[in-house]
């Protein structure tokens, strides 16, 4: 069965921040994860680029603040917007 977009994103976040995937929920934001800082978010973005085979623009970097916004960005890019 194909893994859902949300579960792939949660898995990437759990790996980057070294926390159990169960701690990453759809409602999770940068404030819920201790190490979600300006450097680690760059590791997260590069890992997401690798996982989803897409590139993110410099203007989008400030949007990586929660699971929901990340899902929105990926869906938007997938739709070619």
């Amino acid at each position, binding site marked *: 069965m194909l893994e859902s977009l949300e579960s792939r994103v949660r898995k990437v976040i759990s790996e980057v921040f070294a926390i159990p995937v169960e701690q990453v929920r759809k409602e999770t934001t940068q404030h819920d994860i201790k190490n979600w*800082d*300006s450097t680690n978010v760059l590791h997260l973005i*590069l890992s997401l680029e690798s996982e989803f085979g897409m590139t993110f623009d410099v203007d989008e970097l400030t949007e990586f603040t929660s699971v929901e916004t990340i899902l929105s960005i990926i869906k938007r890019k997938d739709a070619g917007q």
Partner: protein
Amino acid sequence: MTKVDLFGEGVEFDHIGMSMKSIEHALGGIEQTVDPTQKVAVAFFDLHGAPIEAVQPQSDDSPVASSLNRGIKLLHLCFRVPNLDNAICVARRNGLLLVASPTPATAFDGRRIAWLFSETMGLFELLEASRPDCPPPPAR
């Protein structure tokens, strides 16, 4: 020694960026330049032959301030590139992330800089070798 090419041809090492809470405290009366765009004051000095850019945050929301608070002193490596846009393009192809678009920098006489992040090597500053409106003389 193995050569690694991240930014394309014609790239030269320029300096190492080092953050410090107070340039005055570390280096005395050295000349400083304030860059309001980057929210930092910088000063250049020679450390046993290594060119160093001392970087002092000018506000609490400066990215340098958060690095300093986490104890990070060595910030970045800076390379001069002949064409900034081309170098960014090559870097993106090599998997680096553009974290700040090209912008003129006060500390470099208005030459453009850009910031890129590598998963394995950390933060890089790219500095255009000349200003777009003031290209170097043609080679003889």
